[in-house]
């Protein structure tokens, strides 16, 4: 029986178990020839035992299609044919980037004999592989063999501090007397884009690791120093904005049975970590709900007023070990933005929701700014290795109502009194005018009346009569 039929059988046996991936279980594995899959039987077997539906295809198989009727035909792609110039029926690098754009995940393994296809594909993600037939070499840290030692099999142990991607043995601090984990890597090095936080250099070189030609070959004539040390990438992973994941490993050999089972090396664990992360089996973050309301009434109005006190809540869960769990962190931050962020505050976890549910709720008591306008409430949670969570709400903040301003201030008492006194004075004048006698009728006034006045009065009387 041929090995791939074995795998197919195993697949059929395990078909009933659910895949552990949060996104899907169809894996396309592309190898130079179908027979060469047997070199990776441990790696591919582990995928199957984890419940993936693995389809192994030769690179030249023209029936390979990433899309069928505009739909993704696979959820994950594993490229183990670094020398292939194209895949399937003329699938180019752009077809694979489109696959990733559509949400597909991809593991790309390279080697010293790397085709332009792979270079172009990697360049899309900020990974630039070294020239052909160069190797990652380390004269100090290499796989120790009984007889012949190959300095091209680098024992790499510079792991990125990414606990979301790597298991504690790699990313965490080592216990005393614990041997530093090492991953055997035989292949090509790459430069990685330092400025892009989406790209994580998971495994980099030691100070003695450099990129160069093999023993006996003519070294590259170059005035510049070779790629080495920290800037020499061996395995880098990328997460797109849409949370698709891509891993670039400069070595197909590190996935092979030969290196996977090597004593003294941690390839088994490392490769599993990379595959699990890339195929969305861990550190998948999602927001299951969010809301905001006035603290006083608990209602969400159509718009807020300036300086309102509100409560913002968001539910987060993380996928690992085949289930959604509450996501526990202390750095979930809320922002209220109008062009610039006016408020950025860390949300607290609401403990009560943790026990039974699969989500953790984070809340914050927020006093809105005393500015009105259209604000965006945003939780933009991007952490190395975790899926991006970016939740935005557009919220209108209105100025105070005309009667919402503070009133009856002590500072204005004199003005209130003044106004009332004027009202009373006016009423008093009215009363005096209406009820007191005509001054002409009183003796006093009569005595005081001048000739002119009586004249004027007469005139008026004449006129009116």
């Amino acid at each position: 029986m041929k090995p791939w039929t074995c795998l197919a059988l195993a697949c059929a046996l395990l078909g009933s178990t659910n895949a552990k991936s949060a996104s899907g279980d169809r894996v396309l594995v592309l190898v130079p020839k179908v027979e060469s899959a047997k070199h990776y039987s441990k790696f591919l077997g582990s995928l199957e035992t984890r419940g993936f539906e693995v389809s192994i295809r030769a690179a030249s198989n023209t029936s390979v299609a990433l899309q069928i009727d505009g739909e993704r035909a696979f959820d994950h792609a594993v490229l183990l044919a670094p020398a292939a110039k194209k895949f399937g029926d003329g699938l180019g690098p752009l077809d694979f980037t489109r696959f990733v754009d559509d949400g597909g995940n991809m593991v790309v393994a390279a080697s010293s004999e790397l085709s332009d296809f792979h270079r172009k594909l990697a360049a899309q993600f900020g990974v630039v592989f070294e020239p052909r037939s160069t190797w990652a070499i380390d004269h100090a840290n290499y796989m120790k063999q009984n007889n012949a030692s190959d300095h091209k099999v680098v024992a790499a142990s510079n792991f990125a501090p990414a606990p979301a991607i790597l298991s504690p043995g790699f990313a965490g601090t080592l216990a005393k007397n614990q041997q530093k984990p090492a991953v055997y890597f035989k292949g090509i090095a790459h430069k990685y884009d330092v400025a892009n936080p989406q790209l994580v250099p998971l495994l980099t070189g030691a100070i003695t690791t450099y990129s160069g030609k093999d023993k006996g070959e003519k070294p590259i004539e170059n005035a510049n120093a070779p790629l080495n040390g920290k800037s020499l990438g061996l395995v880098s992973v990328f997460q797109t904005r849409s949370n698709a994941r891509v891993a670039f490993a400069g070595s197909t050999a590190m996935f092979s049975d030969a290196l996977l089972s090597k004593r003294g090396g941690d390839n088994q664990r490392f490769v599993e970590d990379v595959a699990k992360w890339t195929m969305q089996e861990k550190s998948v973050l999602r927001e299951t709900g969010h809301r905001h309301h006035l603290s006083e009434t608990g209602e969400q109005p159509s718009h807020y007023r300036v300086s309102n006190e509100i409560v913002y809540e968001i539910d987060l869960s993380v996928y690992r070990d085949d289930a959604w769990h509450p996501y526990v962190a202390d750095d979930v931050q809320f922002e209220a933005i109008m062009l610039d962020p006016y408020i950025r505050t860390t949300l607290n976890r609401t403990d009560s929701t943790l026990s039974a549910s699969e989500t953790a709720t984070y809340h914050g008591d927020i006093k809105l700014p005393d500015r009105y306008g259209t604000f965006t409430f945003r939780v933009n949670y991007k952490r190395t290795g975790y899926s991006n969570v970016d939740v935005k709400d557009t919220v209108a903040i209105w100025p105070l109502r005309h009667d919402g301003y503070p009133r009856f201030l002590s500072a204005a008492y004199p003005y209130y009194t003044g106004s009332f006194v004027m009202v009373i004075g006016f009423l008093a004048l009215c009363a005096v005018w209406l009820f007191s006698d005509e001054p002409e009728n009183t003796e006093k006034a009569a005595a005081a009346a001048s000739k002119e006045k009586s004249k004027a009065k007469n005139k008026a009387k004449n006129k009116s009569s």
Partner: protein
Amino acid sequence: MRLLRAVFASAVGLCVLGGSSLAAIHVGPVHVKVMERTGDKQVSQTLEYPQKLASTPKLTASTPFSLAFTAFSDASHQNALALDQALVVMRHASTGDEVTLAGKMGAHGSYRVDVARKQFRAQLAGQPGKYTVRLVLGSFDQGALVYPVGEVQVAGKQARAADTVVYGRREEIRHRFGEPQKMPSVLVSLAFAVLAAAPLGALVAAWQRMGVRVRSVDGAAAGFLALVAAYMALAAAYWVGVRLLPTLAYVLALALPTYVAGQRALSRRRAAKQ
């Protein structure tokens, strides 16, 4: 001497990895030079492995830095070794960023690393600070040797950090609310309120002195006054409650009676006057 060197070698053993004692790289004296612009040597030291630089030389664009050495395949420094890897790695003490300089092979198996102005500007000047300098030598046959030569201080101007997104917790921002208005003490306000009310008393007193007396109260005039007072009360109620529509309704309701009462009261007065 050799014993001493072995002791030293084991002291820095962490750096020297791989390669048995038989196949190892042995490095000859390392000449370190830092030149002043004038041509004087700021530092000129010859180091015997694993000796370190005595001082921390300061590197600027105008003070070239050079390092020359020869590697040997034997401890007695007889056979010069052609290296597969001859690098000087400068690692920034605080950021951990590395700058790698390649050694150029010269005559008789000697190697030389020069930091000229151009290279300095391109690779070092943008990130000033203290750097540790390591000689990293490697050979397929002889293994590797890492020789920490010492430290240098790089002068320059910190390049402006590119506008890159960095994941992780970001600095909190608190909104600064407008400060509450300053208000005088309540007692002052109350005192002025009393002062503002005082003229009312003075007015009444003045009228009394003038001999104003309410003599005739006729019904029409009283009704008119009551309606005007009602308007005033309505204004006060509007001030307290700020409800425009009910107030407007009352204003309209009161308009006609007030007009009629006013007409009657005033025309009666006028008639009486005549």
